[in-house]
């Protein structure tokens, strides 16, 4: 009986105040649309940043005249005895020559012979560990020079500048996205709660009268909270429908051409929808309930 009554009250007030109700619903809708677009974009961007980071690698160049046994020994050492190594790939002289001469044909034609050594390309488990691997394979001597742990190894190199650039750039991208996302969520909460507060403000006289007629605080509050829940739900459902339509109509056809959009780490749409929906309901219900407190002091 009580719930039915409160529900009827909530519906009545929406029917009689269509414009504030619409404004509250629209603010939920717009907010969710923006969040719904932005959250996957953030995820795709961080995913892409991570992919770039994965390209960071360490090169272990071998002496020019190494034997197969020596190559095998170094490989064993890299795979079994070195920490933070994700994978190891052997690049033979011939393979390196083929690749480099393709990049710079004239220079290599002039050379005539192959000056490149055999090498191993090491992918670290985390790009930030690349320096640790390097120190393990080529420790610093007290005099500041580098020695190598195996006589067959000539040099351990990473493309230092590039690596640093990639690492800082991806850090910045991730940080910026995080901050932006946080700001957006705060802005959304403010927008929704402000709209609700405004629409309640226009009804504070009504709340005053209810109190003078002998209504308790909770008797007045419940219909408002229910109204918030209903409007939040409506806005949420509409936003999710629009997002789904947008995804099917625009993003999915493009996804085949652009790796970024189909980046593996984006959240699935149903999960995103569920989260957005919950956020909408909680924010609008809490918003109405809390904003009302001020007007109940009659």
């Amino acid at each position: 009986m009580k719930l039915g009554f409160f529900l009827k009250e909530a519906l009545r007030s929406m029917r009689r105040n269509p414009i504030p109700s619409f404004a509250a619903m629209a603010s939920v809708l717009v907010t969710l649309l923006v969040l719904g677009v932005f959250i996957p974009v953030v995820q795709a961007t961080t995913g892409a940043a991570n992919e770039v980071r994965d390209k960071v690698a360490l090169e272990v160049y071998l002496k020019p005249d190494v034997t197969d046994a020596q190559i095998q020994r170094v490989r064993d050492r890299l795979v079994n005895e070195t920490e933070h190594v994700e994978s190891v790939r052997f690049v033979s002289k011939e393979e390196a020559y083929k690749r480099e001469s393709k990049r710079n044909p004239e220079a290599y034609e002039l050379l005539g012979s192959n000056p490149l050594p055999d090498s191993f390309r090491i992918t670290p488990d985390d790009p930030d560990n690349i320096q640790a691997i390097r120190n393990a394979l080529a420790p610093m001597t007290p005099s500041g020079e580098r020695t190598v742990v195996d006589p067959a190894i000539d040099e351990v190199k990473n493309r230092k500048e590039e690596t640093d650039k990639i690492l800082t750039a991806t850090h910045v991208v991730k940080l910026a996205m995080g901050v932006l996302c946080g700001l957006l969520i705060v802005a959304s909460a403010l927008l929704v709660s402000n709209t609700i507060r405004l629409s309640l403000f226009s009804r504070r006289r009504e709340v005053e009268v209810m109190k003078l007629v002998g209504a308790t605080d909770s008797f007045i509050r419940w219909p408002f909270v229910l109204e918030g829940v209903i409007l939040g739900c409506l806005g949420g459902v509409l936003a999710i429908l629009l997002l789904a339509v947008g995804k099917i109509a625009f993003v999915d056809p493009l996804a085949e051409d652009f790796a970024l959009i189909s980046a593996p780490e984006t959240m699935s749409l149903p999960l995103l929808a569920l989260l957005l929906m919950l956020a909408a309901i909680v924010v609008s219900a809490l918003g109405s309930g809390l904003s009302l407190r001020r007007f109940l002091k009659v």
Partner: protein
Amino acid sequence: MAALEQSSRVAAAPRRERPTPQVPVVELRHVTKRYEGGDVGLDDCSLAISRGEFVFIVGHSGSGKSTLMRLLMKETEPTEGIVRVAGRDLRDIGRRKVPYYRRNIGMVFQDFKLLPNRTVYDNVAYALQVTGSSRREIRTKVPDILRLTGLSTKLHNYPDQLSGGEQQRVAIARAFVNHPPLLLADEPTGNLDPETSIGIMQLLYRINRTGSTVIVATHDVAMVDKMRRRVIELQRGRVVRDQAAARYSGGEPNTAELGAILKEHLEL
């Protein structure tokens, strides 16, 4: 007004027990109310009203009539002094208990204070809904009181679709639908033609006859003279006259008795 005459329901309701004159329904002791701007609403005002009385509060605009009503509703707190209703010091009523206290008082506000998003019927029903009345109770009581106030044909109108007088009658219906033991009416005939005013006054009188204490703030001198009830006159927040007028009917408390009770309380 035919509707008013028709229904003898309220008038015929069983009388409540005679008051124990020792405990006034309403008692103010040296009450002063200063508003924030420095305006004086009431100034050292003392008065006592017994159960079952019908009292007019008169005075110029700004003399403190509405302030008195607001204090009784616990809508504002007195700056000084004590307000007692049914022997209870209003300061002792906590914030959470205020709604329950207000349910015992029917108040007709000077500005009606109808709920704009509700029909006439729902406005009156709201006063019952807040008390948790059953739907059946609401369905019998609301049409009754609306018939009594002559609003049967306007059940589904919203307040902005009513004339001033009709709104006033809705306010009266809402105030009385609970049959509260204390009825406060602030300027209940302010917007009405003389004939309708008489109807309203008759209604208030009937309500009074069922045992409710009725306090009416008004400028309507003609009405007060015609009704011949106890009159309390305020001037700049002070009581300048408290006079028991002529007897109205046999069943009412003796005015001389009332005067004695009053003196007793005022001299305390």
